[in-house]
């Protein structure tokens, strides 16, 4: 049953592809074949790949446009950083701390997902997109107001809404340290995120999303996308399954955020702005809605591309935009597809098999 199913075969190919790509990059890096800037990009690439997979669950599988996905990443990043830094003295192993940080990030993002989802998921289409956009901006501003410090007595959190309070108001005792300094963000973070950990997170996200898609719950989520009225008529609870997809998506984004946040010594909340949400959405749309393999490739390529195009200097963003347009036409325009099929004969055969 397993091997006969073409979609299952494709899933296995995706897993194999990620593992092979990891091994190649890992060996190249250990032999010093990667440039400095590229090896610095490895963890962010992993984080963006997980972001793309998780957003694809909302946009491609559930079929609801979300423009505030960076908000969940932000929640995950800051809660993960706080968890990792405050546990630094208790848990010496950085790997274990990273895992805990990702779990904490996922949990906090999931809670945020529930809070946002309850009112937002009553809306549909454009309205939902606009409200998620607003949510992303609100999260950014809320985190800008946070002052968090830790000392021997535990965690101290201040909400600096008026701008009149400062780090001194935390009243940390000797030996305590400040984790988040309001708009300056989290500073002095010990970068414990590693490339292998990022790849493990990608694989985990893939297992969760693909297994979900091939289960009863995933079928129900896709049924809502395909035909909501028919889905209700066969007894599928709309709110429950919308929520399930949205919160799972938020949790994965939170874990990706924790990974991302723990890769830099300084992290500010303005990093997770509307632009980031849109960038991730571009990965998803370019890779294909509901197509996890496409999301992974698009996220990886489009994260490397701006760096790789540095040689073009001022034409960099122009080249980036042209690549986007060409790929979009190549994958979605029937005429361009037909032209490609003529130019590359074996592609046509593949397309027929795919249909």
């Amino acid at each position, binding site marked *: 049953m397993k091997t006969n199913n073409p979609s299952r075969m494709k899933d296995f190919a995706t897993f194999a592809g990620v593992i092979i790509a990891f091994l190649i990059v890992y060996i190249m890096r250990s032999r010093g074949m990667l440039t400095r800037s590229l090896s610095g990009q490895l963890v962010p690439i992993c984080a963006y790949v997980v972001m793309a997979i998780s957003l694809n669950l909302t946009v491609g599988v559930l079929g609801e446009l979300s423009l505030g996905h960076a908000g969940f990443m932000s929640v995950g990043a800051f809660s993960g950083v706080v968890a990792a830094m405050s546990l630094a003295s208790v848990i010496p192993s950085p790997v274990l701390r990273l895992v805990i940080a990702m779990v904490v990030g996922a949990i906090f993002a999931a809670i945020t997902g529930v809070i946002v989802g309850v009112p937002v998921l009553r809306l549909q289409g454009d309205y939902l997109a606009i409200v998620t956009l607003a949510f992303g901006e609100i999260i950014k501003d809320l985190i800008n107001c946070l002052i968090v410090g830790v000392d021997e007595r535990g965690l101290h959190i201040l909400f600096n809404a008026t701008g009149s309070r400062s780090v001194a108001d935390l009243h940390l005792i000797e030996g305590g340290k400040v984790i988040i300094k309001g708009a300056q963000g989290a500073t002095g973070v010990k970068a414990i995120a590693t490339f292998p950990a990022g790849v493990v997170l990608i694989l985990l996200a893939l297992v969760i999303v693909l*297994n979900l898609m091939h289960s009863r719950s995933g079928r129900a989520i896709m049924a809502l996308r395909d035909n909501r*009225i028919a889905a209700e008529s066969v007894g599928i609870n709309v709110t429950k399954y919308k929520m399930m997809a949205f919160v799972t998506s938020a949790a994965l984004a939170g874990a990706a955020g924790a990974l991302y946040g723990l890769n830099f010594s300084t992290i500010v909340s303005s990093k997770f702005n509307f632009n980031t949400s849109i960038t991730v959405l571009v990965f998803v749309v370019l890779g294909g809605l509901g197509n996890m393999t496409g999301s992974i490739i698009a996220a990886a390529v489009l994260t490397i591309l701006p760096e790789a195009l540095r040689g073009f200097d001022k034409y960099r963003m122009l080249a980036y935009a042209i690549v986007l347009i060409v790929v979009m036409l190549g994958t979605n325009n029937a005429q361009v597809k037909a032209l490609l099929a003529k130019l590359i004969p074996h592609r046509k055969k593949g397309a027929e098999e795919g249909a």
Partner: protein
Amino acid sequence: MPKKIRSVNESPLVPVPTDSYIPARDLGKLPVLEARHIGIDFGGLRAVDDFTLTVGSTEITGLIGPNGAGKTTIFNMLTKVYQPTRGTILINGKDTGPMDTVQVSKLGVARTFQNIRLFNEQSVEDNVKLGMHNQINYGMFSGILRLPNYWKQEKIAHERAMELLSIFNMQDMANMKAGSLPYGAQRRLEIIRALGTNPCLLLLDEPAAGMNPSETTELMENIIKIRDTFHIAILLIEHDMNLVMGICEGIAVLNFGKLIAKGTAEDIQNDPVVIEAYLGKKED
């Protein structure tokens, strides 16, 4: 006279206290549907008014009427897509007053749609499994973690889906995308998906639309077969009088949102009000 396709189950209609008729064989049992004086307004428009119908537990009932009479609106009220403005709907004796579509579906009301509504991007088998959604019993985490319960339930679901598909000889299409099926097969798949919900009342909205006479005859036989295999009641909307007169035991005729006649095929065909609704008044 249209050709009659009757099953071994045939029995005469008898009046019931709710101002309707059901087959005599269903008399001792709870009627599957009792719609009492239901009506709905859209703004100032009285789309359906004072509609009363009782459907016996194994009855095949027809709901006919000219275009715009309110037939599909009645289906939408029975499945709670629209909440009726007036009246009561009982399913197996249970009042569906505050219920929504999902709860009514769990009570055993399944339907097909006039304009086919399949889950086009999913496979034929998955469409049937979606019909069986509330029969399959494992949660999100069993699905993600592939716990033993997942494998067990999916295996049962797969076998059941294949069994249901075999009613219409569609097993070979199980792996095709529902959206890529030919028209007739899509109509059949919709019926199978509805049967997957394990209904006690199946609502068919123009099942024979777009079918040729031989396909319609096959459909008539299949509707009888479904009733006799699953022991369920079927309420259908249809413009093909051959089908309605051929298989429906009780027939309700609707015009301008009002019930104008109720009875057997013979009663309906001789009812002057029905003839007027369809053909107009005779001038003298």
